[in-house]
C-alpha cells in the first residue's frame, strides 16, 4: 500500500535471476506495487528489506481482532475519511461498562441486561459487542473477581480497564485466554502492560494525554515488539474527540505509522441521553470501539441503528429480491403495489400494508437497490422497467383486476406506464405511512 514500484525496487537484491518468475527485479517490483505478486516469490530478499517492505505494505489502519469465539469481532482496516469515497469497513464495537465497586448482584443484573440488547432490523440481528470492566475500586483482587463474574455470565469479549499492571495481571489470569482488550498502556506503565498484552496476545490500548504523547508511547510499545494496538488520545470532551478522531484517521491515511491503528472513544456520561448522542457521533466519526455506561435499550438502540446506517456500503444499497411478495395471504382481488427493490422502500410498504390489514401483492422492480425517487431520477424506475417486471413475474395473471398502484412520488410515470402495461395505474401515497388512508379512500370503493 502506498509504495511505488521504484521504492520497492530499491529494496530488492537486483540479481535479475528470474526465479520470481519475472524477467527482472524491476519487473517484479512493479508487480508487487500493483498487488499482483507476493514478496515470498523472491528467495533472496534480505530480512531487513522484508521488514521494511512488510511494514510499508501494511494497511493504513491496522486490523485488530477482539475477543475469542463466536462473539469475536474485528476493527480497523479503514481506508477513507468519508463513507461516500468507498465505505467504512468494520462497524464500531459498542462496549457497555460495569465496575468493581458494584455488588455481585448489580454486576450480574447489568450483564443480563447487556446480553439482552439484541435488536432485529430489516431481518438482521444487531447487538452490542463488549462488556467493559473498570477497576474503580483500585483493588486487584476485587477487579479479578468482577472480571470473572462478568466472563462467566456473558459471551461478549471484555474490555479490562485498569492503570495498575498488578491488577491487570490478576484479571488476565482469569480472562486472558479470551483475548480481552487491555486498557491501557500509558507513558508510565507501558513496559509492564505491553509485556502482559504480549503474553496473552491480547489487543492493547495505548493511551496518550494528547496526540504527540500518544504517538510517542506507541513507538515505544512497537519498539518492544508489539503491534496489536488500539489508540486513545486521552480526549474526553466532545469537540476534542471529534478533532482527535479526525486527525488520527487523517494521519493513518497519510501513512504516519504511529497512528495507524483503530481507536477507542469514551462517551460515558452521567446523563444517558447525552451519552447516547456522543456515542452516535463517535460511531460516525471513526471510533473502532465506543464505551458507554447505559445498558437501557432506549439509549442503545439509536446508537446501534446509526451504526447500521453509517456502515452500509454506499455503493451497494441493501436490496431485496425482485419477486412477488405476498402480504397477509392476498387473493385475486387484492391490490398490486409497485415499488423499487431498495430494502427500506420495500420494508416500509410491507410494514404499513400489514398495519392497514389489507392483503396485497408487493412488486419491487429491480433498481439496483436504490430508492424510488433516486431510481426515477436515474431512469431505473421507469414505465419500461415496471412493464418488464410485471410481465416477467406474471403478477397480473394472479389477479382478477387490471389495476396497479405506483408510489405518489413518481405520479408522472402513470400515463406512459398505463400505455405500456395496459393496466389502469393508480397513484398511491408519497409516503408509505399514507397507505392506510389510500386503501380506505381509493381501493375499497
Amino acid at each position: 500500500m502506498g509504495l511505488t514500484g521504484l521504492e520497492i525496487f530499491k529494496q530488492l537484491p537486483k540479481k535479475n535471476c528470474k526465479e520470481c518468475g519475472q524477467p527482472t527485479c524491476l519487473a517484479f517490483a512493479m508487480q508487487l506495487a500493483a498487488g499482483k505478486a507476493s514478496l515470498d516469490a523472491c528467495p533472496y530478499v534480505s530480512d531487513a528489506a522484508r521488514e521494511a517492505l512488510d511494514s510499508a505494505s501494511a494497511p493504513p489502519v491496522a486490523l485488530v481482532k477482539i475477543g475469542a469465539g463466536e462473539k469475536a469481532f474485528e476493527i480497523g482496516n479503514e481506508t477513507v475519511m468519508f463513507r461516500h469515497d468507498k465505505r467504512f469497513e468494520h462497524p464500531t464495537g459498542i462496549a457497555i461498562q460495569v465496575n468493581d465497586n458494584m455488588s455481585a448482584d448489580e454486576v450480574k443484573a447489568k450483564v443480563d441486561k447487556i446480553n439482552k440488547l439484541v435488536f432485529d432490523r430489516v431481518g438482521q440481528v444487531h447487538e452490542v459487542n463488549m462488556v467493559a470492566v473498570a477497576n474503580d475500586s483500585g483493588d486487584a483482587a476485587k477487579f479479578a473477581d468482577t472480571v470473572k463474574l462478568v466472563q462467566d455470565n456473558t459471551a461478549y469479549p471484555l474490555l479490562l480497564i485498569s492503570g495498575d499492571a498488578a491488577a491487570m495481571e490478576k484479571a488476565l489470569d482469569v480472562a486472558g485466554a479470551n483475548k480481552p482488550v487491555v486498557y491501557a498502556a500509558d507513558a508510565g506503565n507501558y513496559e509492564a502492560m505491553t509485556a502482559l498484552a504480549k503474553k496473552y496476545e491480547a489487543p492493547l490500548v495505548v493511551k496518550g494525554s494528547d496526540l504527540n504523547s500518544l504517538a510517542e508511547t506507541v513507538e515505544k510499545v512497537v519498539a518492544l515488539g508489539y503491534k496489536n494496538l488500539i489508540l486513545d488520545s486521552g480526549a474526553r470532551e466532545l469537540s476534542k474527540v471529534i478533532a482527535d478522531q479526525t486527525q488520527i484517521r487523517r494521519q493513518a491515511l497519510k501513512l504516519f505509522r504511529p497512528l495507524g491503528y483503530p481507536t477507542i472513544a469514551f462517551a460515558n456520561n452521567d446523563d444517558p441521553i447525552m451519552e447516547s448522542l456522543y456515542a452516535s457521533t463517535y460511531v460516525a466519526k471513526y471510533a473502532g470501539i465506543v464505551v458507554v455506561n447505559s445498558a437501557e435499550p432506549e439509549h442503545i438502540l439509536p446508537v446501534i441503528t446509526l451504526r447500521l446506517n453509517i456502515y452500509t456500503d454506499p455503493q451497494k444499497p441493501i436490496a431485496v429480491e425482485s419477486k412477488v411478495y405476498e402480504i397477509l395471504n392476498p387473493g385475486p382481488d387484492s391490490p398490486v403495489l409497485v415499488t423499487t427493490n431498495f430494502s427500506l422502500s420495500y420494508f416500509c410498504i410491507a410494514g404499513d400494508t400489514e398495519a392497514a390489514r389489507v392483503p396485497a401483492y408487493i412488486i419491487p422492480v429491480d433498481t439496483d437497490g436504490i430508492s424510488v425517487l433516486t431510481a426515477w431520477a436515474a431512469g431505473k424506475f421507469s414505465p419500461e422497467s415496471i412493464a418488464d417486471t410485471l410481465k416477467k413475474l406474471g403478477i397480473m395473471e394472479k389477479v382478477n383486476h387490471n389495476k396497479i398502484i405506483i408510489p405518489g412520488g413518481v405520479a408522472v410515470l402513470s400515463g406512459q406506464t398505463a400505455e405500456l402495461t395496459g393496466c389502469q395505474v393508480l397513484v398511491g401515497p408519497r409516503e408509505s405511512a399514507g397507505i392506510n388512508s389510500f386503501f380506505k379512500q381509493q381501493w375499497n370503493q
Partner: protein
Amino acid sequence: MAVTIAKERWTSKVAEEAYGPQGLKVGGETTLPFLHFEGEIPNRAVTALEVFDTEPKDYPDILKEPFADVINDPVAWAKKVVEYGADMVALRLMSAHPDWNNASAQDVAKTAKAVADAIDVPLIVIGCGVEEKDGEILPVVAEALEGKKALIGCVTANNYKSITAAANGYGHYVIASSPLDINLCKQLNILINEMGLPLDRIAFDPLVGALGYGIEYAYSIMERARMGALTGDKTLATPIVAFIGQEAWKAKEAKDADVPEWGPQADRAILWEATTATTFAIAGANIFIMRHPESVKRFNAFVDEAMKSNAY
C-alpha cells in the same frame, strides 16, 4: 515522533445568510463541521420548532403534550416555542392542504402574518406539501410577510417560479427541496438563481431520512455538498435545511408507546429526533426544523459542546 497536525486548505466557504428583522446569522463556515482547528465556524446550528396552523393529525401523545393548551392556536403555539428556546418558528400551513381544510391563500397568509407579528424570532413558513397548492399560497404569504425576511418553502422543481419571484420581490429567502440527489439539489439552486434570486437567499433541503430510515443518504449528500462548497462550488454553498422532526416522528421507534424490548418511549422518542439532528450536524446541516422542545434542548446542549475550540 511529533505529530504534524494535518489541516486541509479549503479555498471557499458556505454562504452566510441573515434571517428575519433580527438578522439571525447562519452559515459562513470555512471548514467541515466542528473542525475548528482548521477553519472558522462563525455561526452555530440554529433550531426551529414546528407550529401547525391547524391541529396536527398524526402527532403522538408525547408530542402533543408540550403544546396541549395551544395546539389550536398558532399564535399562542408560536409564542410557546419561542419560550421553549427555539431560534426560529417554523409555521406549517397544513390547513391549505386539499385533504385537510383546503384553506385559501388569503386565510393562511393572515395566519402567517399574525404569527410573524407575535414573535421576536425569524419565521420559517412551510407550505402544505402539495406542490401546486404551495405554488398558489406561498406567493400570497410572501406578500403578507413583506419586511419579515422569512425563509419560505418548500420550493421544488415543479413550483419554484411563482414562489421564487414573490420571495425575491418581498425580500425573503427560499428553501429549495430536491430528492436525495446532489445534482438535483445543485440544479434547483441554479434554476432559482437564474430567476434573479441571489444564491445567498437560498437554503437547500436534500429531503433527509430519519435515523434508521435512510439517514445515510442525506448524510453523504451533505458531506459531499459541504466539500463542494469549501472547494469553490457556489451552487452547493447555500446553508442546508434538515426537516428533522417531520421525519423522526414518522419512525415507529419514536411513535410507538409500547414496545417493551425498545425501552420506555420518553427517552427513546427524544433520542430518535435528537440523534437524527446531531447526525446531520456532523454532516454539515445548518438549520434544524424539529418538533419536540426536549429534543431541541438536548440538541443545543450537544452543539454547545461541539462548538468549543479544538485548536491544536
